[in-house]
């Protein structure tokens, strides 16, 4: 069996090995030295098996700054199409945008994301969507650390048993709380931008000590007495 496994591994394309090689490096401890990749995907629906990614949008955040030039935005050619979701993301099947095939999109994304921390609102969904696509193309899963802005946002609120609070927060909620303009909502890059700004404002409130602390803060609160 191991032979089979090894053989399959050897078949992986070069860009995957390049991607993996980045993970030999440890993430810097200081938050300011870390690059965060805020991402969002537009998909035909919520099913990991049936539905497909139509677009990946991402931008890099480092030391409180975002370079407009250095963003990532690809539209993907897909056979599967769901007319119901089209009004949300506005990507039509025969739109005139330049599209690439899924494998190329993934390749470009891996080159862009390196070993950086992926940030998203409900990031698990986007990561799972990308992983499903990777799997379809015979590739392993993403190896990046992730941060979820919903979980982190909840940590900024006071924990009190007396005030009832919402359990779920949408990206719209965050945009409102942090007064971020909701322009370009439901475009992958537009949502990625809102997520990035939300992360900045959350960081200011949480003031995590280092990167490990920040990742840990997503988990449920433990009360030590």
């Amino acid at each position, binding site marked *: 069996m191991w032979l089979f496994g090894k053989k399959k591994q050897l078949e992986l394309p070069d860009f995957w090995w390049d991607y993996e090689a980045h993970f030999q490096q440890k993430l810097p401890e200081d938050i300011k030295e870390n690059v965060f990749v805020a991402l969002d995907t537009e998909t035909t629906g919520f099913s990991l098996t049936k539905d497909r990614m139509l677009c990946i949008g991402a931008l890099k955040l480092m030391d409180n*700054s975002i370079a407009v*030039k250095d963003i990532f*935005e690809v539209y993907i050619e897909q056979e599967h199409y769901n007319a119901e979701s089209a009004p949300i993301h506005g990507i039509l099947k025969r739109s005139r945008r330049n599209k690439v095939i899924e494998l190329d999109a993934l390749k470009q994304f891996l080159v862009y994301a390196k070993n950086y921390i992926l940030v998203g609102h409900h990031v698990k969904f986007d990561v799972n969507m990308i992983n499903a696509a990777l799997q379809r193309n015979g590739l392993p899963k993403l190896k990046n650390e992730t941060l979820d802005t919903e979980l982190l946002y909840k940590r900024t609120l006071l924990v009190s048993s007396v005030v009832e609070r919402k359990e779920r927060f949408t990206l719209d909620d965050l945009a409102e709380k942090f007064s971020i303009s909701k322009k370009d909502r439901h475009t*992958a890059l537009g949502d990625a931008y809102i997520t990035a700004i939300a992360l*900045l404002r959350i960081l200011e409130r949480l003031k995590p000590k280092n990167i490990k602390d920040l990742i840990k803060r997503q988990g449920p609160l433990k009360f030590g007495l």
Partner: protein
Amino acid sequence: MKNTISERVADFLKSFPPFNALDSKQLDILSMEVVILHKENNAIVFTEKEAPHEHFYVVNKGAIALTKKGSSQILDICDEGDVFGLRPLLAHESYKLEARAHEETILYAVPIKHFKPLALENKRVGNFLIESFASNTRNPYSIKHRGKLYGSGDTAEKLDPKILDLQPISYSTDLITCTEGTKIMNLATTMAKNNVSCILVIKDGLPVGIITDKDLRKKVATGECPITEPAKTIMSSPIITYPSELTLAQAQMAMMKSNISHLILTEDGTPDAPAVGLLSKHDVMVALGNNPAVLLRAIKRAMDAKVLRKIRHGIMNLLQGYLDQNIPIGLVSKIISELNDASTKRVIELSLQKMPSEPPVPFTWLTLGSQGRGEQLLNTDQDNAILFADVPADELEQTRYYFLKLASLISTDLNTIGFEYCPAEMMASNPAWCHSLWEWKEVTGRWINNPGPDEILLSSIFFDYNITYGDRTLADELSDSIFDHARMFPQFLTHLAGGALQNPSPSGFFRDFLVEQDGEHKDFFDLKLRALMPIIDAARVLILSHSIKSINNTAERYEKLAELEPNNKELFQACSYASKALLKFRTKQGLLHNDSGRYIELQRLNKEEKIKLKRTFKTIKEIQSLIEIRFQVKNLIR
């Protein structure tokens, strides 16, 4: 070449000068090169004498304060859409001022390398740069520095406050006019509708006369002249006109010389040219920006939250000035709270206008916590609640829905002005803080009957409510209900007193300060928790035990207590003094560090300040022991 983010940047920039002069292609190219920066509160963008950066900055969200290094006096506040840090880049010299984030801020950094060719290429951009050097008075509360792009003069000279008088003044260009034949009653209606104190009389496009409130009072209200007469009979004519490039000092002189309160500004300064603007005494006062009455009027006239936000910067300047002049803190807090209240009230009025319909029943907007006590001098969180009149059960949710919607409008605007959202969601936009009278009676009754630690905490925040807007009778009825409950369950007061004693002690065994042991504020002294809260909590429980309503301010509560209990007069007076001293302390610290003033770095206090602080601790200990004995807190199982 563009992407979703660069489009977003371009979309923002296109509405502000000088970028509005660029064509969309140029703007697209420039936007691609922008770097979006996030600055936390008090983060420095650049400092004095620093070599020029490769970018200049546009404020996207938040505000940037420009100061002279080492001075707390803010020279200018750059708001949304304002450009700063450009002049040094063009002049190839180091920065003359320090720019620091006045609140959490998002900046667009525009590279000079890519902007300069556009500025040279595009005449309108170049003209803007020159013009904005020549005059810029958009923010009347500060000495101008923004936009001085090609300026060569020494900055230190401009910083002299006396030179402020020579700043060009902003005037209203929105002229309200009538003709000579307009009937007095009609022109008075126009004035009332536009909320102005004077109207210009125009003939053939030229100004020929002016009618002010004074004319109406003296010539019409006295019966001398009936309201059906034409404007011509009462107007002041001929008029005195001035050119529009008037400085503050010139304007003041002109008004004094001719003993008039309104100046008419024409294109060339003569009466033979069309009027371009009107300058009232009020404008002059606003420009001086140091008068609460003027600020109050500006608040009442504000048409949206953004204007209010600017006025609030003025309020902060005023506060700083008062503290510098050592004006009694009791008076200061009254004035500032009054202004805060007026801002909130104005926000509510504006939000009501935005609602599709009138409120279904009367309601009251309650401000809670420190704002309710009139002790909120700095911008802190918004704590508020809505209390609306009882409705039949089947209409309750529908009514609540209306008020929740209203509350979320209000809360968003308050946030725009600078009141942060309450992190515990104690806001009227939360269904738990938006109740009918009957429901509030129930809720508060429950707190009083089952005083657990949470209920005590909620009571201590809620019971300091102050009516900011709406029906007073509703709140009075609620207060009565609370007192009735408190009388029926005297244990509640004991628990409340217990709560007041739970705050950690300010000083240790050797009378030294106790500082925070860990966390973000390690080695800082928590002024709010260790000093202010105990004294505030004590005042609340004592005043509730006397069933005194509608005194919320802690210092005033102690003064009232001194009156009610002559035998404890001295202690209560000391408490009143201590609460004022602590409030002043906190405000000063907050202004100094541009934060809430809650945490104090002890090393930075001088000996005198430390002694002052310690003196209040003694009073805190005394009032705590009085409470402990009076309400028999020892009997509580803790």
